[in-house]
């Protein structure tokens, strides 16, 4: 019994990143729902788990963690022999994987999250999309995806020859964007388009999409 708990919800991109990792590793866990509309992520109880008041928060026995990319890395290392390998034992391959997880964090996500908020989240909350912001960040995302197009012409996945955390970290925001006008940026780049189709077809990811549809 691993005693893994994830405090969050399936709609959150950061929480989904962690859930995808747990499913890839075939790990048992409990999802503790956090009702963000009711401000549950700002309560004292939750702030004790994540002082930044953001989902997800994570527990594995006595260990308490936050920041989705720290959690996924912990899971991938601690449970390396289980399920899908998400990191590489070879140190040079691991270094390359680490480069592309940083690219996701520093280059892809700032633009992709902004677009996800404007085009996918705001409509869900009944708010108005700011199309000037959309235009600005689609331009930024396009530059990043040009680099990805070249990279994916040389390497089957971003992190290397196999699916890894570097690819997985992109799943939640990419999935949302493929349901918006921004999908054109992915579809017009053949290598990127093939990569998106591949990673979003993974059974672990499909489980999360299915969970969203039943909650």
């Amino acid at each position, binding site marked *: 019994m691993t005693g893994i708990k994830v405090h969050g919800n399936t709609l959150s991109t950061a929480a989904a990143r962690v859930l995808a990792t747990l499913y890839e590793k075939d790990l048992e866990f409990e999802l503790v729902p956090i009702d963000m509309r009711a401000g549950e992520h700002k309560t004292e109880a939750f702030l004790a788990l994540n002082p930044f008041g953001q989902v997800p928060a994570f527990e594995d026995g006595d260990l308490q963690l936050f*920041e989705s990319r720290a959690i996924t890395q912990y899971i991938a290392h601690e449970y390396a022999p289980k399920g899908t390998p998400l990191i590489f034992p070879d140190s040079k391959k691991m270094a390359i994987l680490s480069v592309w997880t*940083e690219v996701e964090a520093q280059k892809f996500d700032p633009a992709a999250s902004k677009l996800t908020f404007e085009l996918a989240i705001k409509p869900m909350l009944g708010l108005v999309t700011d199309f000037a912001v959309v235009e600005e960040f689609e331009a930024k995302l396009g530059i990043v995806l040009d680099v990805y197009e070249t990279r994916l012409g040389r390497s089957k996945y971003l992190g290397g020859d196999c699916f890894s955390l570097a690819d997985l970290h992109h799943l939640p925001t990419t999935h949302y964007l493929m349901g918006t006008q921004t999908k054109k940026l992915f579809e017009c780049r053949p290598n990127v388009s093939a990569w998106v189709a591949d990673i979003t077809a993974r059974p672990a990811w499909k489980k999360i999409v299915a969970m969203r549809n039943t909650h």
Partner: protein
Amino acid sequence: MVLKLHGLSVSTNTARVVACLHEKDVEFELVLVDLFACGNKEPSFLAKNPFGQIPVLEDGGITLFESRAISSYVAEKFKESGTDLIRHESLEEAALVKVWTEVESQQYHPAICPIIYEFFGKPVQGLEPDQAVIDANLVKLEKVLDVYETKLSSTKYLAGDFYSLADLHHFPYTFYFMKTPWGSLINDRPHVKAWWEDITSRPALNKVAEGMTFGENQ
């Protein structure tokens, strides 16, 4: 074979890696990239980093970019020498270092980076700083520092009672931030101030600081 680091001493992101190399007592060669002559846009440089940014590390057959990936690589490869930055012998400590390096990356950096860019980066290009951008990000930075103040009242450093990569990653941008008019954000928070004074007393960070000369002629 000696590591080659392509970058500039004044650059925050280059300094992040240099700090790590000094902490680990690792020898390296700094290969200067002339940003003013757009050396970072040359095909030979783009072949190393398709985003055209410094720093880039070459170690034998591999080429790495993104400063935090490089510093993690150095901290891991040389984990048996110099300062222990990643706490590899303790699962819990290693995981907490990862949490607080992500905090720097996802919470601290997005607030402090625009301030440094507006205050130092724009004048170098002959542009006017946008005070509205600075003000908005000072508000964000204060909220992050409030969390740090609480955390540092219960642990000596960010990830625990041990110095780690998580603290080191804060050095370059904070160093320049203390040369702006808004250093009180650090100095008015007693635990944050004590933490900052502690880490900046480290020989490795003093060595890096010698090359970080932005703001000295302003």
